């Protein structure tokens, strides 16, 4: 992977009237990287993608694709390909015509066009569907045509706008791998918008978490998982979501004290100002269940959900926690369990700024 930047965003701002949709976005995407933009709906991730495509005009900042300034450049001159959530296949054209639309606009010679079509059709497995119309295809096939239409152009960047959200769960998992494999094979630069953090985590080299038009954090998927910069990122990445408990740093500065006397204090593995108001974050999969070294606390089980390979426990007062255990358990609602968390897996966030400490 070369480090030369394919897409550069410097201080991007976008206003819709008085609404500030994108606030000072800075993002550099090296050539060949797969970047996922992830966040809840309305966070600006689609707006950012559409700005990259040229479908929205940015209000401020600098946008470069392959070194060329893109501010105000119309979409057709940007040489990027976009896969839409609804696929946006042209209903009055056959699969072949859909695939070759961009080539026909460029005036590519017939022979070359035929070769490109065959190659792409083979790549995405549509050889025998070329003369069908989009309405005669299944959801998965339409998705492939949309991909093919992007691939055939060999664009400077691929932009994906939640391309898998209209597929059923099984197909989605399958297409996830396929898109990633395609990306690697083509050596393409891809920007992928999704609201599904699993998609972002599994597919991307680099994940950008957005909220309210701001980049909350960016980094490799495991980086975000291990070292979330804010409480929002911590809650957004990982499934089931992280448990959050308000607390205060104890007098020794190395453990937390909870407001309730019936919850034992928790060592945090670092030194902080005593008395500081914090939020403790515990990932469900990091909470160990069973008679521990005595540093744990005893909680009562409220709900037990088994999936076969994993078991989800929910505890009740004094502390409601979601816990993921591998394997199965004999525990039943009402039972008491000993839980403990290794101090390396305790996340501490400032109560006020919600930033990681």
């Amino acid at each position, binding site marked *: 992977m070369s480090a030369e930047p394919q897409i550069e965003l410097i201080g991007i701002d976008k206003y819709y009237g008085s609404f500030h949709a994108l606030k000072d976005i800075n993002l550099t995407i090296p050539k060949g990287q797969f970047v996922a933009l992830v966040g809840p709906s309305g966070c600006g991730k689609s707006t950012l993608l559409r700005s990259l495509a040229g479908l929205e005009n940015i209000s401020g900042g600098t946008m470069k694709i392959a070194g060329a300034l893109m501010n105000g450049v119309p979409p057709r001159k940007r040489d990027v390909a976009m896969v839409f*959530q609804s696929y*946006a296949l*042209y209903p*009055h054209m056959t699969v072949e015509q859909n695939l070759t639309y*961009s080539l026909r*606009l460029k005036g590519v010679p017939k022979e070359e066009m035929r070769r490109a079509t065959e190659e792409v059709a083979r790549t995405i497995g549509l050889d025998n569907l070329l003369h069908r119309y989009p309405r005669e295809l299944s959801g998965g096939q339409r998705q492939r045509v949309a991909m093919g*239409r992007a691939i055939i152009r060999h664009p400077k960047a691929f932009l994906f706008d939640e391309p898998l959200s209209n597929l059923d769960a099984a197909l989605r998992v399958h297409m996830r791998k396929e898109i990633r494999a395609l990306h690697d094979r083509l050596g393409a630069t891809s920007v992928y918008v999704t609201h599904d953090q699993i998609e972002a985590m599994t597919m991307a080299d680099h994940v950008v978490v957005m909220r309210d038009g701001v980049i909350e954090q960016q980094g490799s998927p495991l980086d975000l998982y291990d070292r979330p910069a804010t409480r929002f990122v911590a809650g957004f990445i990982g499934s089931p979501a992280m448990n959050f408990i308000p607390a205060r740093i104890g007098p020794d500065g190395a453990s937390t004290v909870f407001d309730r006397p019936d919850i034992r204090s928790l060592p945090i593995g670092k030194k902080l100002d005593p008395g500081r108001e914090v939020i403790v974050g515990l990932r469900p999969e990091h909470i160990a269940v069973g008679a521990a070294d005595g540093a744990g606390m005893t909680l009562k089980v409220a709900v037990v959900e088994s999936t076969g390979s994993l078991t989800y426990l929910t505890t009740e007062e004094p502390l409601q926690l979601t816990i993921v255990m591998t394997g199965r358990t004999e525990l039943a609602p009402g039972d008491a369990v000993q839980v403990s968390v290794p101090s390396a897996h305790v996340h501490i966030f400032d109560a006020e700024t919600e930033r990681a400490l």
Partner: protein
Amino acid sequence: MTRTYTPWFLLAVALGLAAIYLFPVYWMYVTSVKSGSEIFSNPPTFWPADPNIGVFGDVWARRAMPTYLWNSVVIAGGVTAITVVLGTGCAYVLARYRNVWIDIGLFCVLMLQVLPASVMVTPLFVGFNQIGLLNYPRTAVVLAAAAKAMPFFVVLVRATFMSVPRELEESALVDGNSRVGAFFSIVLPLARNGILVCAILTFMSAFGEYIYSKSIIQSPVLQPASVGLSGFLGPNSTDWNSIMAYSAIYVTPILAIFVILQRRIVAGLTSGALK
């Protein structure tokens, strides 16, 4: 119980109303081939005793119908052409942009529909007279009638454009087309059915246009068939079967077009352009 009967009852009412509306058409055809005395016989006969088909050829020649019908076609064709070319662009803009000016524009367009032709004809006549348009009376009528037909066309075609997903256009833009190119290669083909249907309806209503033609066109050589028909109705006119024969010749082509295209028209009006 009532549940199962209600649709049948409503269907019966609908058919009854349709019959009331369509009976005159039937009566027109029947009367046209009746003899003078049979027309006034009491009780009336519902099927002519001695059909006289010759009346059609007679009226066709005697009333110079080819000239009148040609004028109708010219006027209707002109109205349709202007309405389709201008109205399609207008409808597209009204469908794709949303702001206060668009709302004002749409309101003005709908206002045109509210004003009846009989109210508009006098100011139009005066205006056309001032700029000398009355020397080209058919052109004047085409302009006036196109203005009248425009709102209906724009509102219906706008709905058709709105049913074309925006993403298709955006996809075409990213694929390398210009705004105008995307309109012609993506949006227009998809809206074609709706536009065609509205064009046919516009043509048919312009084919029967009367008020503007009657007031603006003086020369019989330039008048459309609707005005020609009214020439029959003098104070002493009793030539009912000729009048009915004239009407039948006038109406039959429109009816035929409608029957042939009926399926498409209904589909185009109810379902939008896609699918």
